[in-house]
């Protein structure tokens, strides 16, 4: 049940959160309501801005942000693309999740009522070259249950999270990525700005 305000639930969810892992299922609908792609997999997040987004079905894709770079590995394409983490990913919806405590810096955040058994926050990007018009975060029982965002194409992507595990011990190499043999690595990420990792 959507108990407290969404903001209160966000704060409860984000406070003391060092690392977290969850399952996600994502589905997109285009502006005319046609079902687009769907995907499911696992997500791990850890301070300071580490994330691992792994799609298992219906295709495979792995995105790892190691604090300096964001690696995107597509086994079907036998290709790894890499870029600096600070620049690109700052505009992507995933960045919302990595900086839950700092939302107000990037977005105009407002309560957006309750529906579907969740209390909702609406996020509008402060800068105008964000890749999405808005994002909505749905909370219930002090947990983030749903993220919805609409990109500039009018596609709405809904991501449902389940089975949150807070501050679980994550394997050491969760946020590290080494390109597998045979995969081509494309794009070189300058090490201009490296985040000092405090383990």
């Amino acid at each position, binding site marked *: 049940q959507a108990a407290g305000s969404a903001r209160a639930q966000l704060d409860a969810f984000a406070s003391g959160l060092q690392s977290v892992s969850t399952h996600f299922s994502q589905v997109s609908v285009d502006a005319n309501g046609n079902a687009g792609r*769907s995907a499911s997999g696992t997500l791990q997040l850890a301070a300071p801005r580490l994330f691992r987004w792994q799609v298992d079905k219906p*295709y495979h894709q792995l995105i790892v942000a190691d604090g300096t770079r964001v690696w995107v590995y597509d086994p*079907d394409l*036998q290709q790894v693309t890499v870029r600096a983490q600070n620049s690109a990913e700052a505009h992507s919806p995933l960045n919302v999740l990595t900086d839950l405590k700092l939302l107000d810096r990037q977005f105009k955040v407002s309560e957006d009522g309750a529906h579907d058994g969740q209390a909702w926050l609406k996020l509008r990007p402060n800068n105008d070259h964000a890749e999405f018009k808005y994002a909505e975060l749905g909370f219930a029982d002090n947990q983030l249950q749903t993220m919805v965002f609409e990109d*500039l*194409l009018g*596609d709405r992507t809904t991501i449902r999270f389940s089975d949150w595990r807070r501050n679980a011990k994550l394997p050491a190499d969760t946020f590290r990525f080494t390109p597998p043999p*045979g995969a*081509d690595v494309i794009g*070189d990420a300058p090490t201009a700005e490296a985040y000092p990792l405090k383990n």
Partner: protein
Amino acid sequence: CAPTPLVLRPGTGAERAAQAQRAQVLAQLPVWQASGRIGVADAQQGGSGGFDWAEDGESIDFTLTAPITGRSFRLQSGPDGACLSGLKPQPVCAFDAAGLLRTELGWELPLRELRAWVLGMAAPGSASRMQYGRDGLPAQLQQDGWVIQYRSWDRQARPLAMPRLIEAQRAPYSVRLYVEQWRFPELAAKPATASSAHGDAPGRR
């Protein structure tokens, strides 16, 4: 599945005849849809996502979706012009689709040729060199300064084997397509989709 290593040799008479037949068969099927994964890169950066590509002989409807990793965009191009939407709040339109990709994305892609390459054949109108692989199917095509490698094929596709993993390269650009599903709606029999077909929606209308 690791693709067979590229063995490159000129085509036998039979292979060249089969290639001529491919061009003929596909010329009768101007309406097609392809969907799968796409990776595009230039010297500085690259991205990957899902793609839906629909053609009907006159117009192109191409959508790249990368909701998490990057930008989704849609290119619609027809005889009277092209529009690119999803990069800016409002669609950007111009007369020529390739020019739009150049100005809006900084990509230098020969769309007309790419259409033929992805179907497994050279584009008409300029010299090209096709080399064949161990399995008798096209393995590498060179045209207009581009090198197109056919790293794996979908032999169950109808009406004939269709490329599955294709890479088109011309420094500093690389376009890589993994086609999960080919569809030729005009085929009389129901097209047998690729073994790993998914519930992806066909090209968007």
